[in-house]
């Protein structure tokens, strides 16, 4: 299944190393239109200025967590339709349930591999799956 290589992706993580990993893995999928944010608040303002096609966000960040960001996005008429993938080390059932209830499109547990990333991106775009 092919990916839309022109999609604009916002990646959010408080670890710059993880942002770099995500950017590199996305580049290997030929997705180069990528913006970064180190926390949920910055990401939200970035999205309001220029809504992306996809958000890939960590959960455990301060002061605005990935779950807070997800809720803000889903409550925002301009952004609520955007696919949102949570990439996190939080893997308890209650985390996944909370994210699902908040409207997450898919969920990746760290550490992850490139195949998983690709599969999850494909899965959140129904036309591609």
């Amino acid at each position: 299944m092919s990916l839309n290589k022109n999609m604009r992706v916002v990646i959010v993580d408080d670890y710059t190393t993880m942002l770099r990993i995500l950017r590199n893995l996305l580049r290997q999928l030929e997705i180069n239109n990528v913006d970064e944010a180190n926390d949920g608040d910055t990401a939200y303002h970035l999205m309001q200025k220029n809504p992306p096609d996809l958000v890939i966000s960590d959960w455990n960040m301060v002061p605005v967590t990935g779950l807070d960001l997800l809720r803000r996005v889903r409550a925002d008429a301009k952004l609520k339709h955007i696919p949102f993938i949570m990439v996190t080390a939080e893997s308890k059932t209650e985390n996944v349930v909370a994210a699902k209830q908040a409207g997450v499109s898919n969920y990746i547990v760290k550490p992850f591999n490139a195949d998983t990333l690709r599969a999850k991106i494909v899965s959140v775009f129904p036309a591609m799956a």
Partner: protein
Amino acid sequence: MTQSPNLQLPDAEGYLNRVIGELRTLKAPHKNTLVSVLEYLSDHIRLTRSEIGALKSGSGNAQVFSTTTDELEEIVTETARATNRIMDAAESVEKVAATLEAGPAGTLMDAVTSIYEASAFQDITGQRITKIVRALQSLEEKLASLTSAFGPLEEAQPAKPEGDAALLNGPQLEKSAASQTDIDALFASLG
């Protein structure tokens, strides 16, 4: 004997000892059992105070918690630095791979992808270390409240390492470490 209206933990041992002393002067038939129980409580308070005093001054450093926190944060910094260097190298390989024929390029790209995937260890270990730092900070606060509740404690003086053991203090924290230039200058100054 009159009871203090605001009996504090530091007073409790002395208060119990006074009660024990007064009980012993009585001619009540069953006083020995009560005296034994109170002596046990008094000993227990003394032992607990002593253990908290030792813990407060343990590990040879009154600031053991903040030092340990610094050490842990240094691990996060160092692993981040190393991971970035690894990724610098992987990105260079990726650029070269793009110029090669499909076969070797594919092999190199697979290897580069594996490096990117494995580099996530820094994020995972960083999060775990952050949790440990928070647990240490919480422990430090609880210990401070406990020592405060027990009043002034006699801090046991930790044994200082001697001889060669006293030379083992590394690795140094970056903010206090001597640079190679400092070492070279020192080495040269020693003749």
